[in-house]
């Protein structure tokens, strides 16, 4: 079966046009938030914290800030795109078209990745202004940005298909994404935690995402690489399969 490339590209350009209508929400807000994190935790507070090996505290914090924003951008993009289309019923335009379920999902996830990469690049530019950007391995960097975007894009789609109200869109952010990302090692190493609390890092998937990106950027690693990779790839595969199945049965779409 041939791929409907024009249909896929239409999904992407349509969403880009939509995002262009809300530049403050889509572009400016995450950059201002990242700027404040970098300035306060990296520069003001970080200036009083001793270096991590050969790296400053700001250089240590930056990958975590980038990852937090990637997670938020990916999740918000997927939830807002799907939920608003359901709310306006404009999702029916896609449902009546000859796009396969996989193409519908691929179109949504492509935009999620684009927005995340764009957000990451914006924060890296701010980081450069503070002289805090390093790139230990670009392929690794892209791997973590893309895979984590996909995971939170899939999660966002599931939440957007499930939600019946705007309030429900925030449930995962408030009770799961924000707390876990905050304690996932953005601002501290595992070694800084008391031994009895270190399970909180090792049992937290965000720790592996942040650690992976940190290794890609500054070469600092404090988690077994195999666990991080296996966890990330498994999560992406499982969530991707769930989303595909939901589209195939029409859950939240064709009921």
């Amino acid at each position, binding site marked *: 079966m041939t791929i409907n490339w024009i249909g896929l590209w*239409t999904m992407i350009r349509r969403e880009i046009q939509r995002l262009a209508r809300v530049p403050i929400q889509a572009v400016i807000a995450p950059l201002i938030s990242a700027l404040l994190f970098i300035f306060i935790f990296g520069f003001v507070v970080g200036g009083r914290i001793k270096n991590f090996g050969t790296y400053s505290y700001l250089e240590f914090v930056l990958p975590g800030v980038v990852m937090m924003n990637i997670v938020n951008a990916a999740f918000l993009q997927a939830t807002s795109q799907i939920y608003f289309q359901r709310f*306006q019923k404009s999702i*029916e335009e896609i449902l009546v078209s000859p796009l396969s379920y996989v193409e519908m999902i691929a179109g949504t996830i492509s935009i999620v990745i684009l927005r995340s990469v764009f957000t990451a690049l914006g924060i890296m530019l701010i980081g450069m202004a503070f002289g805090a950007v390093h790139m230990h391995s670009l392929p690794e960097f892209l791997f973590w940005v893309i895979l984590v975007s996909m995971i939170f894009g899939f999660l966002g789609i599931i939440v957007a298909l499930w939600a019946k109200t705007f309030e429900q869109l925030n449930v995962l952010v408030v009770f799961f994404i924000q707390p876990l990302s905050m304690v996932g090692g953005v601002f501290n190493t595992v070694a800084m935690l008391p031994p009895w609390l270190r399970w909180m890092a090792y049992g937290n998937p965000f720790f592996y995402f942040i650690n992976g990106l940190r290794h890609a950027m500054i070469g600092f690693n404090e988690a077994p690489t195999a666990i991080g990779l296996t966890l990330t790839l498994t999560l992406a595969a499982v969530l991707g399969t769930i989303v595909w199945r939901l589209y195939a049965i029409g859950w939240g779409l064709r009921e």
Partner: protein
Amino acid sequence: MTPALEISHLRKVYKSGTVAVEDVSLTIQPGDFFGFLGPNGAGKSTTIHCVTGITNPTSGTIKIFGVDAVADYRNARKLVGLSPQEFNVDPFANARNIVDWMGGYFGMRAAERKRRIDMLIERFDLVQHANKPFRELSGGLKRRVILARAMINDPKLLILDEPTAGVDVELRMDLWRYLQELNRDGTTILLTSHYLEEIERLCRNIAIVNKGRIVRNGPKEEFFTEPGGLERAYLAATGKAAEHAAVAAR
């Protein structure tokens, strides 16, 4: 000849338990102009939603020019254009983009889309309004955009769910002429409407649906063999004839 649309024992039960379509079977031949009548909530729109993929049928089969609308949904959808009853668009997008996106979803190349969009925008008198956000358009103009969107892929089966609801007489007459033109050129049209004169004027075959079942189906002429014509036949088929006769007698 392969029917343009063949629905067999269609049933749709929503998650809430509401049975929207109990048992609908109907066949529309290629080139037909088919009228689908019924009171509000009878199951017309749900049937259309099942045909076009907006909702999943609970059971039954739907074939569009012989292509199964569930098992081979991609190929089935290439053959259909839908103008829904509700305005299911991004209200902040402009008319040109709304039509263009639909063409893109159907895999139409940019040059082909532009040619079709220019033609449709001209045909529906939208030139002055093509770049205005949808939400700023009047009800009639919105309806024109929805109709243009339904026709972007030059569908073999055009489904129009109450296309003239809320539009002025001029557009209605103009649309009738255009639909007759399309039908003469070979497009099969399925039309639902509450305006009986519209169905009477345009359609060759008519089905009446009530409480999720087809209660009458046949060539238009059959509806005029009885006194009172289509209106009487419609009221009789939907079980409202006695009620209306009583009101008229008062």
